[in-house]
């Protein structure tokens, strides 16, 4: 392993009912993914405010991923449908501002999909790592 290998910082917002449980299942099955992924538990993916995502980037995150129940399976029946619209709009806007679209992602991971959770995280970390450090949405004050 290289000593100075670039380690991206990934913030993952996971809904309590599906994706957080999916992450737990990945743990139960010992399915490894990089420690760069830090999970924040939210009741539903629809709790994720765009400001949280921007804040993560400001504070030095290199990628932000939101995970929720599959469409139709939301614990709250429709929360993830709102998430889907909000994130489609937000991600498109970030892209419009020239911010790498690969740094943001929305994935549906059910409580039974531990393997999908690990695979998704592995893929996302790799994608973000290949982009390098987040320069376009960083706040230099937080790096001093």
């Amino acid at each position: 392993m290289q000593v100075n290998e670039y380690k991206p910082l990934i913030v993952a917002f996971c809904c309590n009912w599906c994706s957080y449980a999916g992450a737990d299942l990945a743990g139960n099955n010992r399915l490894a993914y990089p420690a760069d992924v830090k999970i924040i538990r939210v009741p539903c993916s629809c709790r994720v405010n765009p400001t949280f995502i921007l804040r993560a980037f400001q504070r030095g995150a290199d990628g932000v991923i939101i995970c929720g129940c599959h469409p139709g399976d939301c614990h709250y029946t429709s929360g993830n449908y709102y998430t889907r619209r909000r994130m489609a709009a937000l991600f498109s806007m970030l892209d419009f501002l020239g911010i790498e679209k690969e740094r943001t992602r929305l994935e549906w991971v059910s409580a039974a999909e531990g393997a999908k959770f690990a695979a998704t995280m592995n893929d996302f970390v790799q994608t973000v790592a290949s982009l390098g450090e987040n320069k376009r949405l960083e706040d230099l004050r937080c790096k001093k």
Partner: protein
Amino acid sequence: MQKITREQLIAKASELLSNGTVSQVLGWGKGEFDYDVTPTLFSSAEELENGFVFNDFCGANFSKYLVSKAAKADGKLLVFLKPCDTYSFNQLLTEHRFDREKVYAVGIPCEGMADISKVKAISGDGIASINADGDNLVVTTLYEDAPITIATKDVLAERCINCKSKKHVAYDELMGEEGEVLASNRFDEVARLEAMTADERFAFWQNELSRCIRCNACRDACPACTCEKCVFDNPNSGVENKSPANEFEEKLFHIIRAYHVAGRCTDCGECSRVCPQNIPLHLLNRKFIKDINEFYGEYQAGEEVDSRAPLVNYTTEDLEPGEVFDRGDNNA
């Protein structure tokens, strides 16, 4: 030149004042020069005669004032609404921001409003007077001996060039003829930016937003931004800030500002009109509108009262955020 005249509007306002329909009139007040008008409340025919103006520079959208002024008015408040203003009017009604019973709305036709900076670009600065003459503006300046004639259509504000509708979607009474919803090219500039590479877009916005001085004029003039307290002014919101300390905060403010009005923005263009640094802020709003139209079907905020804004709505078949970018590689 506007099809409706100051005199007609004063006559209408005076009539409504005298027959008791309204107790106050929200109109354009005379400024120091021929192009600077101030939204003003008038209570009598005399006040109107002295201070009311209507000319090619009456662009300000009055709808937002209804939130504060209608509640305070004793009787009904008369407001003159251009077609674009009526969309904001409806949107505010949808959001229960003022009492419809307190307002008497008169729809007036609009031929497009002039942008004084475009006038100055042609005539030079030092404007002494501007008068409308048919389809032209006749400008005299401190430096030119002869009056300069400028075609009004050459100095229309950006938002008027791309006017989306000459049709009023709300009024109690209509003066002049009703117009049509127009097929405008208002998304062309957004499409042009979309066609750029991400790097080019980043450079474009970096340049534009770096000029922001966070005067909040865009927000404060916006008829969709009527929050009792804006998150950016609220120390408990976690995102409060007063000045853009760096590029991040410039972006944060403008992304969230546009996001908060996404689906509610009627594309009135006030944000760009009032920006002292001429940042094309309306492009951010239009990007959201364009996306919403393409993702979820055409939606015009304010077209109908009580319509549900797309971001507080959904269908089970909506596209995934990942598919947003698959619709055609816009970097290709």
